[in-house]
Each structure stands twice: as C-alpha cells, then as structure tokens.
C-alpha cells in the first residue's frame, strides 16, 4: 500500500465549542410529518383535488338554478351546454346539480364508513391489545373468523335482505370493515403499552380509559389515519359497485354510483351521462389513495427511503 505523507493531512477546523451547537430547530413529530408530506407532490395534488371536491360538494348544488330531483321531460338527454353544464339525464334532471348532490352522498358514505370503522376498530383493538392474555386471544380469534368472511359478498347479502338505503349501506360496509382497523390498533397498542410513560401514567393512578385516550391512541394515530384514508375510497368504490348490481340508492336520490350505472345503459348515445360521474369516482379514489400513500410515507420515513 502507498504510504501517505503526514503533510498531506490538514485540520479543516472542528472547534470543540461547535460540537454541541444545534444546527436546526427541533421539530415535533407531527411538524416533521407535515414537512415530509408537503414535499410529496403527488399527495399535495391529491389534497388539492380533494379540497376542490369538498368545496363543490358543498356549494355545487347551489351554483345552478336547477334542482337535482326535478324532472323536466321536455329536456331529456341534453348534451352539456350553457344552460345545463353537464347535460341532463333521461328524465331531464340537471346533471350538474345531480353530480354535486351525488358527491355529497358518495363522500358521506365514505367518511361515515371510515368513522364507524374507526370507533369500533379502535375500541376493539385497543381493549384487546391493552388487556392482553385471554381477553386478547378471545377478541382476536373472533376478529380472525370474521376476517375470513368475504367482504363484498356479505355486503351484497345485507343489501339484498335489508333493502338499499343510506343507513343499511353504511351498516353493511362496516360489519366486517372494522376488523382491519382493530388489528392495526391492537398491534400498535401492544408495542406501546410497555413504554415507560404508560407505566408512569399507571403509577399516577390514571384510569385505563385515560391511558388509552391520552397516551395510546394519539401515539397510534399515524397508522389509524392512513387506514382511514384508505377506507374512504374503498367505501366509495363499494357504493358504486352495489349501485351497479342494482342494490344502490333509490331515485331521485343520486350518488355517483347510481349515476354511473344509469349512464352505462346509455353510453352509445349519451356518453356524457357516464363520463362525469365516472371521472369523479376515479378522481376521488385517486386523491384518497395518493393522500393515504403520502401520509404513510411521511409517517414512516424508513419506508420512504426504500421506495
């Protein structure tokens, strides 16, 4: 090996006083997550789409003078124009008003399904994880058995029997939907409950509920949020799927699923009737998916580096 002369080395300057200096302000976990999330262009794009969708769902139905449920048999199947911006359907109902009314219902179904999954899943998984032992074993075995039941088939069955309306639809989706959440929460609680701060809280006499609500759930919030974001597009997709099977909401109520299903029948002659709901379903599913992925990457930077 080549010998390197000592003169070739030089001190570039590392002062002892600088060693302890903090170069960056310290960030809380969520601030850090926010910064990482903002750098993800695709996820930010998803957020923008989602905000626009929500704004339109709130104000869209008031932007046109037409009502979503009023038939106008003189103006059926009109192409998109200055008066009817998205055209009209086979009963002359304004597609623009219907589309945004449908946005409300589709988003409502998605959000409600995610919220109910959240409540049941967090309670079930939280208790199972925290109690451990026999209770955990028993609760998770029930979840395992339910998990084996095919989701969509069960949803179809419920809709056939109970009849299609908003409540039964959300109910049917959450019957087995919460299990995924319960499993994730249980896993998180299992790994968190032996941390020192939980012991400290216990020592101070905090109740189980308080420990769960103040310490365990907030710390598991990352994975919970990701799961919820990915539940919403799934529910919107399921709604569209059920509508296609004729198990959707009954008219004049409109959801994107029922509108797309109506549009399917008329695609040869009036393609715009499928176009608007279809594009919106796809955009919404897309937006929630990229937001969910972005959140997951932002919460766990280790995963991000792998991708």
């Amino acid at each position, binding site marked *: 090996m080549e010998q390197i002369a000592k003169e070739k080395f030089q001190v570039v300057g590392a002062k002892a006083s600088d060693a302890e200096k903090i170069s960056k302000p310290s960030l809380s976990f969520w601030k850090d997550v926010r910064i990482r999330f903002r750098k993800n262009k695709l996820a930010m794009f998803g957020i923008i789409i989602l905000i626009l969708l929500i704004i339109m769902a709130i104000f869209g139905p008031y932007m046109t003078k037409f009502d979503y449920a009023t038939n106008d048999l003189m103006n059926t199947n009109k192409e998109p124009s200055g008066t009817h911006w998205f055209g009209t359907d086979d009963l002359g109902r304004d597609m623009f008003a219907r589309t945004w009314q449908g946005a409300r219902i589709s988003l409502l179904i998605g959000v409600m399904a995610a919220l109910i999954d959240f409540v049941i899943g967090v309670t079930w998984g939280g208790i199972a994880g925290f109690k451990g032992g026999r209770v955990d074993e028993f609760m998770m075995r029930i979840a*395992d*058995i*339910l*998990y*084996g*039941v*095919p*989701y*969509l*088939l*069960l949803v*179809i*069955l*419920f809709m*056939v*029997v109970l*009849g299609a309306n908003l409540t039964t639809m959300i109910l049917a989706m959450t019957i087995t939907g919460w299990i995924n959440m319960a499993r994730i929460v249980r*896993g998180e609680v299992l790994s968190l409950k032996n941390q020192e701060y939980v012991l400290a809280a216990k020592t101070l006499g905090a109740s189980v509920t308080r420990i769960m609500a103040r310490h365990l759930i907030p710390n598991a919030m990352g994975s919970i949020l990701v799961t919820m974001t990915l539940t919403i597009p799934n529910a919107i*997709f399921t709604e*569209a*799927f059920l509508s*296609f*099977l*004729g*198990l959707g909401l009954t008219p004049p109520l409109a959801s994107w699923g029922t509108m*797309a299903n109506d549009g*399917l029948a008329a*695609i*040869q002659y009036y*393609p715009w009737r*499928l176009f608007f709901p*279809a594009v919106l*379903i*796809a*955009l919404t*599913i*897309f937006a929630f*998916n*990229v937001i969910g992925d972005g959140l997951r990457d932002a919460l766990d930077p280790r995963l991000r580096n*792998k*991708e």
Partner: protein
Amino acid sequence: MVKYISKRLLYMVLSLFLIITATFFLMRIAPGNPFTSEKKLPPEIEASLNAHYGLNKPWYAQYGDYLVRIAQWDFGPSFKYESRTVNDLINDGFPVSLALGAEAILFAVAIGILLGVIAALRHNKWQDYTAMIIAVFGISVPSFIMATFLQYIFAIKLGLLPVARWDNFSNTILPALALGATPMAFIARLTRSSMLEVLSNDYIKTAKAKGLSRGAMIMKHTIRNALMPVVSYMGPLSAGIITGSFVIEKIFGIPGLGSHFVLSISNRDYTVIMGVTVFYSILLLVSILLVDIAYGLIDPRIKLAGGKKGE
C-alpha cells in the same frame, strides 16, 4: 407445518360456518316468502310447495337440513326457475367464469410483474413514472367503468373486437383486460416496491462485485425474492377476480356464474343468492388457504409452526 395447517383449517371452517349461518338467517328475515309473485298462489299449492322444499318444518330443522346439504355439496334449488338447481348454475356457469378469471389473472400477473420490474430497474426515470401512472390509473378506475370504456372504444367506436358474447378467443380479450386491470396495477406497485427493497440489499452488491451480468443478477437474485409479496397477494387477488366477474360478465354478456348471480340478485331469487354466496365463500377461503400454504413452502424465512405471522 401440520399444526399450522390444521389451525388454519379450523378457522376456515369456522368462518365458513359463520357465513352459512348468516346467509341462512338473513334469508329468513328477507321480506316475502320464496313464492311471493304477481300471481297469488292457491293455499293448497303453496302448502304443498312449502312441504316440497321443507319450509313447513321449524327453523332449526331447516337450518340443520341446510348444513347437511351444504356438506353434501348440494346448494339447493332455485325458486324462480323450476327444475334448475344452484348446482346446475354452478356446473353451467363456473367453467366460463374460471376461464375468464384465469385469463385475467394471467394478464394481471404477467403485465403487473413486468411493469413493476421495469419501474424498479429504471427507478425515478421516465419508465418508472410511466409504469406508476398506469398503475395509479388502474387502481383509481373501478372495473365496471374500465369495462364500459374499453367496450365503447375498442368494440363500438373502433370495431376491433366483439362487443359482447362468449364464443371464441377474441371475445375474451376485453373482459379479461377489464377484469385484470386493477389487480395488475396492485401487482405492479407491489413488485416495484419489493424489487427496490431487494435491490438495496448487500447480496446484490456482492453479486455485482463478483462480476455477475446484469441479466443473471436480476433473474437469479432479485426477481425471486421480490416476488414474495406478489404471491401473498394472490389470495386477495382471487377475491377481487370473483367479485369483479359479477360486473364484467354482466357488461359483456358472458354466461358465467357471476352473471347468474347478478341476475338472481335482481330477481331476488333468495335460494340462488344464498347458494352462490356459500359456493363463492368456500372457493375463496380454500384459495386463500392454499396461497398461504404455498407462501410458507416457497419462503423459508416464514416459520409456519408458530402460526402467528407478523407479530
């Protein structure tokens, strides 16, 4: 291994029992009886029909009969179409659905892996972005919309492929594409991320260092390891293909089990709905079990004996 499989079998049977019980009781609380129709039946005929189908027995006897019949692979009669049983429908429609499903799975796996591998090898280059845009598109567009657009563009507007029916190979192309699009996208994403993970491993560096050609390195050391998550995705994949087939078969007018099922839903033919649901559940649970066992056999890192994965 034996312990693991028997444990999984037990859960499978329990899940199955649950779904059979759920279907049975749900169908009992469903509005109307099986013979409700526009024409009011004379009470004598209704009584004899009830006796014929065992509906005059108390519910627990009916339930017991039902369990026994399922165990004998008898899914019951159809109430709307006399002389047709659910078994007939299955024998008639399932081979068609299976052919369509197999073609869709083949397409999804082949193209999905190809896209994923290309994306990973050309990480952050245009090939990667293109592949991932295709994948995001496939995930975001529900299959029935994909099917309708494919039908509209390739069959109605361009006239390249037949619009519907099920006669020869050209009939199968569009349905298989529509059915396989979403799983294809999932597989592409899975393959890409696991390829990237594998590529960052030290043994890949070793392989490069010892002068292995790029092709040999990818074939021998990367793809095999990267495909493990894809294998575990085969379970959900079969579920997706089955539920997807309802929609696709209806749109393309394919006489498979899926379209029979959809028809029975719109006819409210409760016994058929019940029988086909149970059949699909058995099919799904068995295929998921097989996938899990296969996964354990291929991947030596997984110890099946413990039974608790990922804990």
